[in-house]
Structure formats: C-alpha cells, structure tokens
C-alpha cells in the first residue's frame, strides 16, 4: 500500500544522524520534525533566520515575531540563535546545513528538480528553494510519485522550469525510495505492499531495479 504523508516523513526521519543541522521545506518535510528519533540531537534551521526551532507554541503563546519559513508560528529551544537572511543563506551555501528535505513537482533521472513555477499558471516564486538545492551537500526530495492525472513525476527530463540542476541525491515518494545514480533512479526500497512492477509502470525516467529490493520498514 502506498505510503501516506506521515509515513513518508517517518521514513525520512530515519536518515537523520546525531548532530545534524537540517532544513525542512514546507509541506511533508515539515512533518519530519515529528519523527526525530529521541536518542539523537537534530537542530532545525529555518531560512528566515532561525537555528534551533522548537514545536508550535501553545495556544495563546503565539508570537507574531517568531515564525518559520512557512510563516507558521513556532517556538525557540534552549540554545537557539537568530540571525538575518544573509547569514542564514551563508550557512546554507557554506554547507553547514547537513541535510535539506524539500518537495518537488518533478525530478529528472539526472537529479534536476522543478518545484517553483508552472508557466502562465502558477507563479508563487522560488523562495529559498534554489539556494537550498544549489548548496546542500545532501538533498532528499519527497513527493507523490504521480500527479493528480496519474502522470509520473520521476522523469527523463523535467518539463517545468528548473529549480536546480543535478542536485537531488535521494527521493522518497509514496511508492518507494530512490537514489539518483548516473544510470538513473535506483530503487532502493519499495513501500510495503507496492510491487516493483507498479513502480516501473509509474516511473517515466530511467529506473534501475536491483535484484533484491527490500520492502521499506516504517
């Protein structure tokens, strides 16, 4: 059965390591924060200028001056730091942030990503996504495997304007987990109950299927 959003977030959380600084994008990536293993310390960076982001505030304790990059009210943890937007992207470009998790509209089998624009239709802007993907040493994209028309979002070539080129290292969809390799998307884990055949059918880009593809443990 395909993964739901929380299961995707939970699987991504297993990629976290002790001491990591992590930037979580808007949407599913935000949910990763709910699943950080209790035995490790992970520090969340929010690109509007916050290191050490805590959970949402209790009702009545919201502070309009304290938000994350998704404009949500958040809190500070002991030992957090505030800085301006230039310093925030300084630490991103200098690869001090160990892992970036973000959503996408399309990914191509050479690691290109498109996530910010549908020409003539949707023009919200790229926010910090272009900076993050061009800089991060480790990027995980999480998204649904297909769009609402059932078309694959794992492509030979992105059809939408790019956010970054050759930058995506790993992808998690509702159907499985993939590494971007010179040969294309390498299937490393499939969602529980999802067949290799279904994934093959729903992947337009080059897909590499190793002999033994384990089922994902959530």
């Amino acid at each position: 059965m395909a993964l739901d959003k929380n299961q995707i977030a939970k699987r991504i959380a297993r990629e976290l390591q002790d001491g990591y600084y992590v930037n979580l994008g808007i949407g599913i990536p935000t949910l990763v924060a709910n699943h950080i293993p209790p035995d490790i310390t992970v520090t969340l960076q929010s690109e509007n200028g916050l290191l050490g982001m805590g959970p949402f505030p209790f009702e009545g304790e919201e502070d309009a001056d304290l938000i994350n990059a998704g404009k949500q009210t958040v809190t500070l943890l002991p030992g957090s730091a505030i800085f301006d937007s230039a310093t925030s992207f300084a630490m991103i470009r200098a690869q001090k942030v160990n892992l970036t998790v973000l959503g996408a509209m399309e990914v191509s089998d050479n690691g290109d990503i498109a996530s910010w624009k549908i020409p003539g239709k949707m023009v919200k802007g790229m926010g910090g996504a272009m900076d993050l993907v061009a800089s991060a040493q480790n990027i995980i994209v999480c998204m649904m495997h297909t769009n609402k028309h059932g078309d694959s979002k794992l492509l030979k070539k992105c059809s939408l304007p790019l956010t970054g080129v050759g930058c995506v290292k790993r992808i998690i969809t509702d159907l499985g987990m993939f590494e971007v390799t010179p040969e294309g998307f390498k299937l490393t884990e499939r969602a529980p109950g999802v067949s290799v055949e279904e994934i093959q059918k729903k992947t337009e880009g080059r897909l590499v299927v190793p002999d033994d593809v384990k089922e994902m443990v959530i």
Partner: protein
Amino acid sequence: MDKRVTDADAALKGLKDGMTLMVGGFGLCGIPENLIAALARSGVKDLTCISNNAGVDDFGLGLLLKSKQIKKMIASYVGENAEFERQMLSGELEVDLVPQGNLAERCRAGGAGIPAFFTPAGYGTEVAEGKETREFDGKMYVMERWLRADYSLVKAWKGDTNGNLVYNRTARNFNPLMAMAGTITIAEVEHLVEPGEIDPDHVHTPGIFVHRIFQGKNYEKRIEQRTVRQRA
C-alpha cells in the same frame, strides 16, 4: 546625531514617483507597517519595490499593489497574494523573482560596496539566463549584481536616536541587510530610546546605516499561519 523624525509621513520626505524602495520583512513578520501605510496615503506611484514577499491582499505591500502604486516588484516568494498573481499574469505588474538567498546577499552587497559576486543559486535555471557564469573549484556559479535603493524602509523592535537598531526574533530577517543598502534608510521602531540605552554589543544595525528614525504606533503584527499545539 539626532535622527528622529515625528512620524511616518515626515519620514518619507523626498520620496518620489518612480523610485526604488527596499521594504524589510519576511511575509508579514517584521514589516514596517507605519511606513507602508504612509506610502499608501502619500499616493506616490511607479515604485520599484524590493522585498522578500508582497504581503497579502489587504496588508503589507498588498496595500500598495491594490492601489497600483507599484510598477515593479523584486521578490522571492509572492504566493500569499492573489491580487499580485492577477497583476503579474495580466502584465500590469513587472516582476523579477529572485532566489531568496541571492536576494539577501544582493541587498547586503549593495550595503557593503560589493558591486557583484558569484553564487551557486539559480545556476542552470531561467534566473541565470543572460548572466555570466563561471566555474570555481569545480562548481558552477552565477554572477549577481548588488541591489541598492533610493529609500530603505525597515522595522526594528528598538532603536536609539543615533539610529542604532535591535530586532526581535525572526522579525529581523531582511531588515538589517536592507538598512545597509538604502541611500536614505528609514527605521520605524516599537521603542525609541536615548543613546546609551542599547548595549553597543547588542546593536544589530549600527546607526551609520540609518538616516531617519521614529517610533511607530498601532502595530497590528498580523500572523499569517497561526499554528499551535494542544496543552497536554
């Protein structure tokens, strides 16, 4: 050097049609509410506004979009504003979308006398079209130019009459960078104090960058996404 002016309207003296403005804030967090309201009142038009976002339909820079005072917008994310999207898609509004980190660094560069620098963000995408690219140490970069403004409008939590500013929490965001890059920088603050009341080590924006300062009033500080958790 006492830089205080009476209010937002007085602070905007000399601001004319067609000028380029930087406006601090991230979403509605840390925006100069009083100055934006005064801009709307002033009727000044054909503005080029540099700001990370464009407000929402009825607040922040959205107010100036509604009144069609903005000719061109330079921003990184404008998804919160339907009127913006309408004006952009219809061609009424010129828009230059810039990666957020590049935007921040370009403002800082403007305030740091650095006319151009190389950045990885946007390489291989349409934002790099027509721009010089270059390889350094095996990685590709795009050359970006500084941004400067005729007027920079910023919001701080506290300021002294010398212009030294202190920001509160993530309301800091672009404000210190834009403060650096204005030919005239105007700061509105929630608390205007006398020189000596801010520890010199706690100053975020040294007063040399600020030309006019006043204490704002009636702060609405609207929250865009009120997210809370339940008490156990």
